[in-house]
């Protein structure tokens, strides 16, 4: 154990994770607009360029954006070591935003310079991010289940991104790929199973006991899930290259099902046995995500036997939006509210008029936002299965609304700053950096202000 590595005071400045958290819903809005514009044609095959644009707006624009911001924030706390080079984070964010915008436009228009622009943005962004994570993990003072799952997730991300850049290189005619389809399949296993799946479960072990006082997850279950998660991208990639028939994909599917089964069981048991009986939007989102995970795999299982793309598209909706986006949205509400409170108000925690988390992110708007998210899920699952154009466009609009609302709620929280004007004091002096002397919190533009 490396004692010198222990630093519990390395939480990054507030703006650093917030810029990722506030950008993510905007890419969600972008994905919704694209879907509302193009309609059901985006749901016909996962391999068309416009569909790939839609998928990457969600996977990179929303999911990876949130997860990278969260890793910058939680690595110092969960791993116990600072992330080096936080001065470069603006570059990571800028590269990701510009690279992803260029990638989307290139997939939609095919203009060759956009391909280069995408690489120019994404390559440095991920190189810096992965380098920072590698250094932080190397200095980890202790290796527990959470640290291990972060390492596994980041490794899978590195491999998935490398393959993604290889595809971009091929389209730029730098090289010719002998086997693009198997490589693409491996890319999907690494990105969804390795990166998204592992990180979300790893964070779940850490936060569910904290938020709901549910008791720790049993270590043997967490390590079991992690073993499956290690096997999943490996077996998936091997099968993609070597398997003589698609039925072989049942092997990684069974592994994914085992991981999901054990994780779902553990979460459901933890939430049922939770000591805090409160119900909030984060809990609702965990329940939604946990319900969608097995459904997404069921859809994938059907696809293995009936290779009609609609089952694959339904899997995409259920896994990316139903499982991953749900859980991350719920986490955003908690993380953003707590970070804003911690940075701006924790020093005056004893005063009676100090804002609380519910003032920073009120319950009601988040509950309404959750309903729009459910509506979006319902519309898009049916649209994926039926290919109904109107439903696909309506689902796209619902995605615009739910991600737009998420953005506004988070923006209001990020701008929430109330200097205490009251004279009643418990001896702690309130300090406020912004100097905006208003007695009431200023909502940015929307009326989601009631407590």
């Amino acid at each position, binding site marked *: 154990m490396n004692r010198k590595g222990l630093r519990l005071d390395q939480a990054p400045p507030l703006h650093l994770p917030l810029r990722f958290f506030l950008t993510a819903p905007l890419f969600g809005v972008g994905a919704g607009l694209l879907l509302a514009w193009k309609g059901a044609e985006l749901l016909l095959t996962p391999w068309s360029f416009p569909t790939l644009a839609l998928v990457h707006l969600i996977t990179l624009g929303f999911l990876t954006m949130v997860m990278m911001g969260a890793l910058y924030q939680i690595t110092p706390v969960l791993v116990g070591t600072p992330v080096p080079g936080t001065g470069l984070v603006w570059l990571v964010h800028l590269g990701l935003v510009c690279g992803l915008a260029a990638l989307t436009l290139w997939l939609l228009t095919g203009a060759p310079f956009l391909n280069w622009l995408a690489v120019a943005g994404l390559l440095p962004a991920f190189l810096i991010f992965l380098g920072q994570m590698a250094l932080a993990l190397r200095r980890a003072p202790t290796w527990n289940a959470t640290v291990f799952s972060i390492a596994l997730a980041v490794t899978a991300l590195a491999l998935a991104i490398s393959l993604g850049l290889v595809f971009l290189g091929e389209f730029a005619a730098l090289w010719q790929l002998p086997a693009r389809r198997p490589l693409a399949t491996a890319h999907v296993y690494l990105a969804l199973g390795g990166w998204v799946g592992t990180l979300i479960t790893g964070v779940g072990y850490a936060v569910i006991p904290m*938020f709901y006082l549910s008791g720790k997850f049993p270590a043997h279950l967490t390590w079991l899930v992690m073993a499956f998660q290690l096997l999943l991208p490996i077996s998936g990639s091997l099968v993609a290259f070597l398997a003589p028939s698609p039925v072989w994909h049942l092997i990684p599917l069974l592994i994914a099902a085992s991981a999901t089964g054990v994780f779902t069981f553990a979460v459901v048991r933890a939430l049922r046995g939770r000591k805090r009986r409160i119900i909030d939007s984060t809990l609702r989102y965990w329940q939604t995500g946990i319900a969608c995970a097995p459904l997404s795999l069921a859809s994938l299982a059907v696809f293995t036997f009936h290779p009609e793309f609609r089952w694959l598209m339904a899997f995409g909706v259920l896994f990316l939006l139903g499982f991953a986006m749900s859980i991350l949205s719920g986490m955003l509400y908690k993380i953003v509210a707590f970070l804003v409170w911690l940075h701006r108000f924790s020093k005056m925690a004893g005063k009676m008029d100090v804002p609380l988390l*519910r003032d920073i992110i009120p319950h009601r708007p988040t509950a309404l936002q959750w309903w729009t998210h459910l509506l979006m899920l319902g519309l898009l699952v049916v649209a994926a299965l039926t290919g109904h154009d109107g439903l696909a466009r309506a689902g796209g609009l619902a995605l615009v609304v739910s991600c737009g609302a998420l953005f506004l709620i988070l923006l209001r929280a990020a701008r929430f700053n109330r200097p205490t004007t009251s004279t009643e004091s418990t001896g702690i002096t309130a300090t406020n950096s912004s100097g905006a002397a208003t007695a009431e919190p200023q909502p940015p533009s929307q009326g989601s202000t009631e407590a």
Partner: protein
Amino acid sequence: MTETTLDLREVPENERSERLTAAFEALPSGGLLFFTTAEDPRRVLRQLITNLWGRFDWAPLKEGDSQWLSQIVKRERPGPTGLEDMLIVEHRRCDDLFAEAEAAAQEGDQERTELLFGRLEMGMERHFTIEEEGFFQEVDQRMGLMGGGPVAVMRDEHQQMRGMLRRMAGALAESNLEDFLAASDTMIYLMEQHNMKEEEMLYPMAEEVLGAEMDELLQRLYLF
């Protein structure tokens, strides 16, 4: 869990330790004993520590008014006291009290909320004191941190939690259970992220630097 109660208020001073020991010995493994004393129970506990160290966990529940209430749990696995047995056990006990107080407030039961919150406050203050007055200093010295680094952050967070406890107490004094719950919903994240940092990072390191001396240190800090 078997629960027993013992009132030592009327018992002559020279018999108290004997009576407490007898009641403790009668407990089944894992059993819980509540006992009341007319003054600070630490005096009678000193005897218990000398004779029965490593076999019980004590926690104060209520103080003052010539009526001090404490609890003693008979450990299922007696042995040298480590952080698991003392500081981590207290984290979990406070978690439980916190959840119960919150549930009582949700049911609108002011009286029960006050009872449970009072126990929570006492437990947390004792825990803070043990860490601040002895444990942190020891860890600080052994790890050569010179008062900075992790220990300073932990101290800061204790201050913030004290603030939130005052906030919750203020709401409770005004019988404003709604506000009490709003404050508790902020407190929980502060408390749990703090516990996690201690349990995942600081405590394992403290165990490494202190080794076999931990038992002795904790015995010294027990009655803070």
